[in-house]
């Protein structure tokens, strides 16, 4: 008789812990070919708010960590991802309907993307900051700082490469994140949260909520203690009006990362393209400090 396998319960990841949704709800996640994969927690408005509290609480420590430290932690994420490569290949293949070979390429690209951002942490200030030669006897320097708590609507299609491509730049720059996963393909994100939990990423730095995007996105966009929002995941999300989300974000002047558009409609970007610095630039604030020079 063959052994009965032990299945994983897919839960939320908030403040370094793995709670179920406070709402008690779950939903069926099926593979690209329609087979049952798991019951995922269906995150609620309250779960999003709890995640924001956790992200705010973690911000001072993460933003205040040295860039060298953040780079090492991100590299550790890549190491642990690599170690669980086979598991991610299975999940990505099932979620996205890819062959094992194609899913392997996606996982490899995701690992390499984390490594790329790990190397950026201690270069951001050097590339985006500078001294300013003001016309007077003053020392004057401009440098980027993290914007704060960033709400991230992760892409609906690319369940792992897309996810790390939107989360890594946010945390590389020293922000903390509240991530709403792909609604239909949430399982790789939950497994990614297990990677984060075992990679010295402090609890609360990344919070992952599996949910119906249309249900929770409005609360995230309107939340007064969220400083910025990435709307990438509106592309392909059912019942989501990104203009309405951007309008909600205006309530406290959140920084908004708009979705890619084709003929005016949101589309998911090509995740294999060179990411560039755009996603880091979008979530930093330039601070300029003056001091007189003199005897």
């Amino acid at each position: 008789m063959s052994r009965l396998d032990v299945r994983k319960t897919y839960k939320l990841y908030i403040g370094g812990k793995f709670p179920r949704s406070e709402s008690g709800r779950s939903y069926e996640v099926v593979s690209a070919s329609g087979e049952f994969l798991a019951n995922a927690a269906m995150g609620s408005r309250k779960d999003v708010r709890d995640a924001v509290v956790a992200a705010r609480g973690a911000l001072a420590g993460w933003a205040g960590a040295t860039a060298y430290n953040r780079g090492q932690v991100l590299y550790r994420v890549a190491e642990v991802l690599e170690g669980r490569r086979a598991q991610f290949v299975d999940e990505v293949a099932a979620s996205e309907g890819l062959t094992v070979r194609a899913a392997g390429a996606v996982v490899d690209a995701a690992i390499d993307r984390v490594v790329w951002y790990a190397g950026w942490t201690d270069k951001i200030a050097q590339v985006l900051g500078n001294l300013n030669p003001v016309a007077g006897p003053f020392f004057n320097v401009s440098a980027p700082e993290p914007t704060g708590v960033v709400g991230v609507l992760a892409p609906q299609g690319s369940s792992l490469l897309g996810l790390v491509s939107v989360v890594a730049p946010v945390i590389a720059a020293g922000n903390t994140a509240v991530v709403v996963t792909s609604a239909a393909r949430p399982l790789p994100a939950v497994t990614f949260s297990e990677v984060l939990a075992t990679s010295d990423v402090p609890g609360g730095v990344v919070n992952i909520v599996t949910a119906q995007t249309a249900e929770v996105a409005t609360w995230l966009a309107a939340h007064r203690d969220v400083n910025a929002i990435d709307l990438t995941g509106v592309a392909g999300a059912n019942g989501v009006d990104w203009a309405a989300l951007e309008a909600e974000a205006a309530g406290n002047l959140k920084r908004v990362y708009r979705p890619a558009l084709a003929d005016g409609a949101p589309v998911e970007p090509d995740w294999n393209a060179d990411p560039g610095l755009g996603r880091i630039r979008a979530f930093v604030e330039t601070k300029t400090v003056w001091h007189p020079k003199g005897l």
Partner: protein
Amino acid sequence: MPKFEYAPAPESRAIVTIEKSYGLFIDGAFTRPKATFPTLNPADETVLAEVSQAGPKDVDKAVAAARRAYEGVWGRMSGAERGKYLFRIARILQERAREFAVLETLDNGKPIKETRDVDVPVAAAHFFYHAGWADKLEYAGLSASGADVPRPHGVVGQVIPWNFPLLMLAWKIAPALATGNTVVLKPAETTPLSALLFAEVCQQAELPAGVVNIITGDGRTGQALVEHPDVDKIAFTGSTEVGKAIARTIAGTSKKATLELGGKAANIVFDDAPLDQAVEGIVNGIFFNQGQVCCAGSRLLVQENVHDQVVAKLKRRLGTLRVGDPMDKNSDLGAINSKAQLDRITSLVEAGVAEGAERWSPECTLPAKGYWFPPTVLTGVSQTHRVATEEIFGPVLSVLTFRTPQEAVAKANNTAYGLSAGVWTEKGSRILWMADQLKAGVVWANTFNRFDPTSPFGGYKESGYGREGGRHGLEAYVTTAPSTLTGAAR
């Protein structure tokens, strides 16, 4: 300390010719004045001129002119040639500096020594600085090496406030033109004259028609410009309330925006600070331009053990300030820009007193006509008072205390704004620690209210987004990648 008696030393207004009425500056020429409203000298309430209220059709014409100029001339011109136009403009501003200073003081009410020594020369410096960028954008680090040269957005709609009319115009127009955009700019309703004189400068510089268009009017004109479908980018300086409305208006479009909004800056004085210098910084921080400055140091946070000493020195210093005729070269404080602003300042200060703050002003005689408010210090202010949370935008300083650096940081950051902050201490490590902790786009340490074209300016949180000035300021006026492929920051 006795105030010295000075004879009046008024600057002559003969240098400037003010027309009876002005049209709009569209496509390189002035339209015939219509639907005019008066602009006043706030120091004596006399009418300086009549200016036109631009309606939706005028906005259409201005945007169309800017589009034609972008597609036909400016967007195709080499950076080197664009830069030379900006150098020309900078030189003409320098040549006509006194004329601009006098006009600005008449229309705005601020002292001539400020327009002469700050507003006008710094405006010219902004054009000079950005002129040099026009043919060097590929060196600005805005795109990866080997990638495309940064490209302009197209037509930029710009709406500016009344507190630094010419300087804000320069902050907006210089980077827009340097990067290859064309402009439709709306000056504030109460201070349109220096922008209209700037239109003449554009003519003297032979700037191609339509590259800069100046349309006057009230908030309705600004709204029509912001909502115009053929405007690619909005640059706004003004209140947080209007900034939020603009952010809502452009939601779901491909319009970009930079917003420079309100502030409630903390000016933090530690007990080891050089107190006499700090007092000068406090005075400059809140009484420069009658405190009508978004980055004004309106909350003085003073370490508890030196509170009485600092307040006593401050009061003594305020006793020497001269409030009066803005055209007098000895005036330190001029008039409040408008009746509406004076009413707002008055009602907020009354609210502060009602909530328990103690109000003090030096003895000074205010002119009988015009809009005037004396330099005012409110002591005993607590964090929940309206005068500690709301932007007053007037010559009113709220004084609070703290005991530890951590408490100073917590109180300084306890605001929805995040534009600027000041720190006064002799201890270098503490300055750098404080600078790290303060959530503000500009931190002035042992100085305050310094501005320079090379130095980026702009806020955190509800003080808006985007930076103006410096290498960072260019970012808001260019695009480096097709947003259809990658998404992009607003």
